[in-house]
């Protein structure tokens, strides 16, 4: 349990990735983070395939931080795949994106996103948000029980 992954961070942009990791680190959530650099990687990880065969559906990440603009399979497709499969459906997904495009928000919520966050331009604000996010999903929120992943 202890070395289980708690956060799956899906981010293609290296700057964003660095800043996100920086912010998580500053908020003491740096351990047990798995980074996926595109949608395909994220899905391979979540569906325990292509190099992630050793993982099991019973041990999903506590939260998925999902960017929307991703190479190969974009963020909303990833979200759809997660939320349409009963084995991954219960995994909390937080969309983190630059824009607050109405279209994306509507679709994201229709697909069952658990939270939708626009990355603010002000980095201090971003850090703050990341801190609150980690605290909420990893500390406050009760993770779904194993039966939720069947």
């Amino acid at each position, binding site marked *: 349990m202890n070395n289980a992954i708690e956060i799956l961070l899906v981010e293609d942009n290296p*700057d*964003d990735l660095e800043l996100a990791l920086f912010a998580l680190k500053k908020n003491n959530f740096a351990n047990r983070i798995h980074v996926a650099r595109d949608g395909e990687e994220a899905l391979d990880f979540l569906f325990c395939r292509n190099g992630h065969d050793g993982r099991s559906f019973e041990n999903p990440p506590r939260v998925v931080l999902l960017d929307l603009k991703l190479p190969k399979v974009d963020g909303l497709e990833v979200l759809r795949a997660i939320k349409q499969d009963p084995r991954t459906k219960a995994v909390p997904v937080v969309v983190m994106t630059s824009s607050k495009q*109405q279209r994306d928000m509507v679709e994201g919520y229709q697909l069952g996103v658990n939270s939708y966050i626009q*990355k*603010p*331009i002000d*980095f201090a604000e971003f850090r703050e948000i990341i801190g609150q996010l980690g605290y909420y999903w990893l500390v406050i929120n009760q993770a779904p029980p194993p039966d939720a992943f069947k």
Partner: protein
Amino acid sequence: MNLRNVPIKRKLVYVIMLTSTVVLLLTSGTLITYELFTFHRTILQNAATIAQIIAANSTSALSFDNEKVGAEILSKLEAEPSIVMACLYKKDGSKLARYPSEQPRSDFPAKPGTEGHRFEKNALQIFLPVREGDAWQGTLFLKLDLTPMYSRVVLYGGIVGGVMIGALLIALALSNWLQKGISEPILELAETAKSVSVNKNYLVRARKYGTDELGSFTDSFNHMLMQIHDRDAALRQSEERLRLTLEASETGTWDWDVQTGFLEWDDFLYKLFGRKRGDFDGRFETFLGYLHPEDRAAVSRLANRALAEKTDFVAEYRVLWPDKSYHYLASRGNALYDERGKAVRLLGVTLDVTEAKEAAEGLSLLAAIVSSSDDAIVGKDLFGTIVSWNVGAERMFGYTAEEAIGSKSTLIVPQDRYDEEVQALQRVQQGKIEHFETRRVRKDGSFFFVSITFSPIRNAEGATIGVSANSRDISDRIRAEEEIRTLNAELEERVIQRTAELAATNQELEAFTYSVSHDLRAPLRHIDAFAQLLEDELKETISSGNRRYIERIRRGVQNMGQLVDDLLNLSRVGRVEIARDETDLNSVVEEVVADLKPEYESREINWSIEALPSLKCDPGLIKQVFINLLSNAVKYTRTRPKAVIEIGQKRVGRELAIFIRDNGVGFNMKYADKLFGVFQRLHRAEDFEGTGVGLATVQRIIQLHEGRIWVEAELDKGATFYFTLKGMHPL
């Protein structure tokens, strides 16, 4: 009393009585006259005899002048009582002797009269000369009293009178009885005639009393009655027929007495004039007054001419009814003339010919329409033979009426349309109206398109006797339709093309804004983040100048981010479909004021919010309007120690406008038109921050709601923004 007017009964009695009286009077008059004459003669003879005797006996007494003898002779007259006086005159005229002697001398004539007799009143006087031989001795005078004799005559007359009266009474009784035989049948006839004339009963018959002339007269009279009855019945019948005919034909009759000028109308004529009995005073002028002013002179002239030339009176005229409607009437009449040939009456009949008139007008109008129609109107019989051909047909098909009439309709039907023509004709014969578009061929062989209507021509019994074909040349229309079709097809293609282009552009735009929203913000975030990280790293060693640079970098990033957000918002407003939800503007305003709170927390702002209407609009967009306008008001009152922001409604013409008034810095109205343009700012960025996109967005939203926005401002005094929205009216 005129004898003529005396009843016949009395007339008969008069005749009989008059006759009897005359006869009796003549008879008794003759009798009495004869008696009187005889009587006179007898008396005279007696008296003359006595006088002769006395005279003969007296000669000696006279010649001897012996008075005594004379008296003695005269005294012998006592035997004759009728002789009342006697006297003997001597030659010298003196009296010798008198009788009666005691009678005074003076009673006797003084001198002897001339010889002869003389009748006096109730007396007869005689003077007779007394002679001896031829010698005249003297004169004898005798006077006889006739009274007793006249008494006899009177008695005689009385008897005659009595007999006469008796005879007359008998005659009266007889005549009374006899006249009945004559007068009764006559009276009966008179009575019958009277009853016939009073009761108009021609069925009574006079009683016949005998076979005399009266009897045959009665027969003739009864026969005449019978004939009169028959004729009367016939007359009644024909009168009834006439009345029914007049009534059925709605004919009014009139009778104009030319001499009195009185014009009499029957009930129906009143109806024809739209008037009630009694409305018309019978004057010819009044009658003329009822006519259309244009017809009066003509009718008057026609009437006078009919009278003068002894022709029929025939006139048509319009009558103005009291309800102001005009009716066409036709009158026809004849005059009656007296024995000198002078017209005494003009009488005749009048008919309402309005319908006929209108029908005739309608017919001539129809004929005019047919002949003047641009359409070809062709009549065909049931065998398809052309029977009528109007001018339009001549123009359209190139055949004259002479050429076309009598030909088969195949003259103008192209061969490939024969079947269509035959089928259409069959359907029309079944009473249907056929409408179709087809081709026709002209005389010169050219083809053209027509729109045709086949309608059945029916006779009065409703049987179809032919077909009316109404054709209109639609070549132009067909050509135009062809062109329109081509144009439409082209247009459609162009639209499809353009739509595709637009869709592509739109997609590009969308993709562009999508990537802008992501990709323009991401670097900004990175710049800000790394600038901050840099600042953090250099925390201890950084100079205050460098720190300011970093701050300037970060502020630029913030501004840029805001600008990106605003532009994205503006472009989104242009693309979204607006919602129409019932929205309470007051709650929107309250929400916005609350949202803006962080911006004015430290300031003193007096918010004055009036009641605002509720209307159908896009709540999200309207909220953006208020966000922009109210945040502007907050922003531009920043320099005021005491800001006043009013939100309310105001009637502007027929519209209701919402206004947002502030007592901020305002602006010069000459720049007002720039205010709503994108990136247009009236203030320096260092005084009041802003992207110059907000009011452009507001205007866009207001325009989407089919409203308008305008502003009133004064530099340093404040600004008032007004806007209207569709469906927002004064309460």
